[in-house]
């Protein structure tokens, strides 16, 4: 087994980024140890740098257990500090009693992924740290944000969803009404259709992370009531073709949605990853439209109006439309096409040595399941199919991995998603040829990553021409 600690390269910024990266690379896979088992020594090594000057004094040091405490869960000697706060790692955790149970968990001190905030403004976004995710689920507090007039504070007791228009019985539903209906859950991604704009240029910046480029996509398990259930409840007319979904935020965000989608797999969601939807994701309830652009999945939903025409709100005319090179603009381009991105290795990673590395990434399609992800290490000259991690779910982030034996030469890494309709994620030039360089939204071209011979990794769009 080979182990390493990050090599300082003289750049304190890079060194700090490398430190964040030790969890992934404390152990290198080798032919002798293909599983790359993380040894006890490696784990201690990763935290050993935090401990200086011998024994640490922690809160736990001050605890002395007596008979009463040992037999009474949760009880402590009077005056003893409750060792529930995160502690610095002792030299030998087996010789110090650990902290007790707590009413709310916390991340390990050294694992503190963060969203990147675009700008402090009522209309802004924050991005999911894709490079820090391991499976397909996005922790709810790292789900990307996009809102247009801030995050509203909504009293769940006063919340109501109104459904009216082309219905037999206009109705309002309280949150408890919504929760009483038969519930459904599904895993699916939500992606802002503006995601990836930084990659839609041949001279794209090199020093950008997966989070900066594509962090406006996240996957959650959403729980709620199928919208079709509510449409039956109000008696939505059969000849209705569109609905307006309107949010209860200060933007009164409003989007028209075809009834076909509403009857198919739309949901009024109130649960996210096992808990109530987070305020920034639409608490107490939002529209979930699996596979469709995030903006249409109206958060804080307060009103649905059933109609036989689209409403032509600002966010489906002035915004969220795709001007094309032929002098038109595509409207209601709601489905997110297949896309993938490599999340490791990526900027600002540095591969410290040659040998086996696992290329890892995420792929997704708004049209169904990912059926294949191809990986190239030579700029697209040759491709090999990556392993897809089960479960592979429709309209959901799918984890792919590909084992790569790096020989130390320059490499241009790419991934190419294929979905069940046969759609193949295009190269940037193909997409520009189809839509024009001035288009907006739906930037799903292949993401290249350049590995330099010294192991540094950069976003490689410029080299991929």
């Amino acid at each position, binding site marked *: 087994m080979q182990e390493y600690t990050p090599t300082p390269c003289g750049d304190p910024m890079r060194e700090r980024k490398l430190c964040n990266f030790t969890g992934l690379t404390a152990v290198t896979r080798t032919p002798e140890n293909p599983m790359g088992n993380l040894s006890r020594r490696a784990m201690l090594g990763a935290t050993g740098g935090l401990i200086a000057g011998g024994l640490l004094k922690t809160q736990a040091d001050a605890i002395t257990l007596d008979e009463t405490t040992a037999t009474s869960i949760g009880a402590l000697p009077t005056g003893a500090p409750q060792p529930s706060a995160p502690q610095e790692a002792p030299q030998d955790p087996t010789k110090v009693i650990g902290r007790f149970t707590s009413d709310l968990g916390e991340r390990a001190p050294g694992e503190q992924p963060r969203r990147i905030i675009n700008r402090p403004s009522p209309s802004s976004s924050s991005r999911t740290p894709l490079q820090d995710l391991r499976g397909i689920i996005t922790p709810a507090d790292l789900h990307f944000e996009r809102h247009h007039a801030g995050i509203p504070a909504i009293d769940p007791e006063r919340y109501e969803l109104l459904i009216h228009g082309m219905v037999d019985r206009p109705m309002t539903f309280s949150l408890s009404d919504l929760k009483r209906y038969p519930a459904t859950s599904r895993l699916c991604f939500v992606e802002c259709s503006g995601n990836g704009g930084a990659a839609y240029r041949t001279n794209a910046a090199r020093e950008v992370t997966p989070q900066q480029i594509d962090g406006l996509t996240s996957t959650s398990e959403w729980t709620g009531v199928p919208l079709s259930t509510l449409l039956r409840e109000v008696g939505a007319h059969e000849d209705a073709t569109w609905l307006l979904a309107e949010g209860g935020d200060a933007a009164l965000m409003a989007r028209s949605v075809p009834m076909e989608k509403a009857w198919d797999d739309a949901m009024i969601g109130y649960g996210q990853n096992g808990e109530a939807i987070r305020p920034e994701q639409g608490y107490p309830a939002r529209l979930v439209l699996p596979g469709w652009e995030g903006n249409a999945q109206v958060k804080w939903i307060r009103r649905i*109006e059933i109609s036989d025409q689209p409403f032509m709100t600002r966010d489906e005319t002035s915004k969220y439309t795709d001007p094309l090179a032929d*002098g038109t603009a595509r409207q209601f381009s709601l489905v997110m096409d297949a896309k993938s991105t490599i999340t490791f290795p990526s900027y600002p990673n540095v591969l410290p040595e040659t040998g086996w590395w696992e290329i890892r990434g995420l792929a997704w399609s708004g049209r169904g399941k990912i059926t294949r992800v191809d990986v190239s290490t030579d700029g697209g000259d040759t491709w090999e199919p990556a392993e897809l991690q089960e479960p592979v779910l429709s309209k959901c982030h799918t984890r792919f991995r590909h084992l790569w034996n790096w020989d130390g030469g320059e490499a241009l890494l790419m991934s190419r998603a294929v979905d069940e309709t046969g759609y193949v994620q295009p190269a940037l030039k193909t997409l520009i040829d189809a839509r024009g360089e001035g288009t907006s939204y739906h930037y799903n071209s292949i993401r290249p990553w350049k590995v330099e011979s010294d192991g540094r990794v950069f976003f490689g769009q410029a080299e991929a021409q």
Partner: protein
Amino acid sequence: MRAFSLLRVALVTTIATLGCQSGGAPSGGAPSGGGSGDAPATFGFGQDATPAQIAALDIDVRPDGTGAPPGSGSVEEGGRVFAAKCAVCHGATGKEGPNDVLVGRDPREGFPFGATRGFRRTVGNYWPYATTLFDYINRTMPMTAPGSLTADEVYATAAYILYLNEIIPEDAVMNAQTLPAVMMPARDRFVPDNRTGGPEIR
């Protein structure tokens, strides 16, 4: 054995009674035991919405004018509202920002926004429907006091922005009849999504 059977009967009876008390399924079809069964067409959860409840929330204005409220506003009145409440974010003439640029007709010919990055999209060169101005301003503008404008002020502000974009004359008045009748320069540029999945890249 006999005792067990009696117990079962008692349990079933109890469950059936509880099922009736909770209302059960209004459309029938559920088994008399009140346990599992086919889902009813409707459940009866939720409340009927009153006309007043609907009217309080139903603010959208569609391209054909549906939903446009009574009231009216002139270009001149809109200029005053704009200077007082809009210019701080959109600039004195709607061109200066820092937030969205609202005014501008360049290029006068064509619709090159897909082909090149060179042109800012404005109300005048990109928005397909004038009614969207009313709908949007009324929803959420001004940003610091969303929903604070009267219908007259919203009509007037829409009129002023359309005038600055050289779409309506200086003496125009916008109301529920005139606003939907405004033909926007980019009206015919918008097309439905033609992406369908499959091998073709569109």
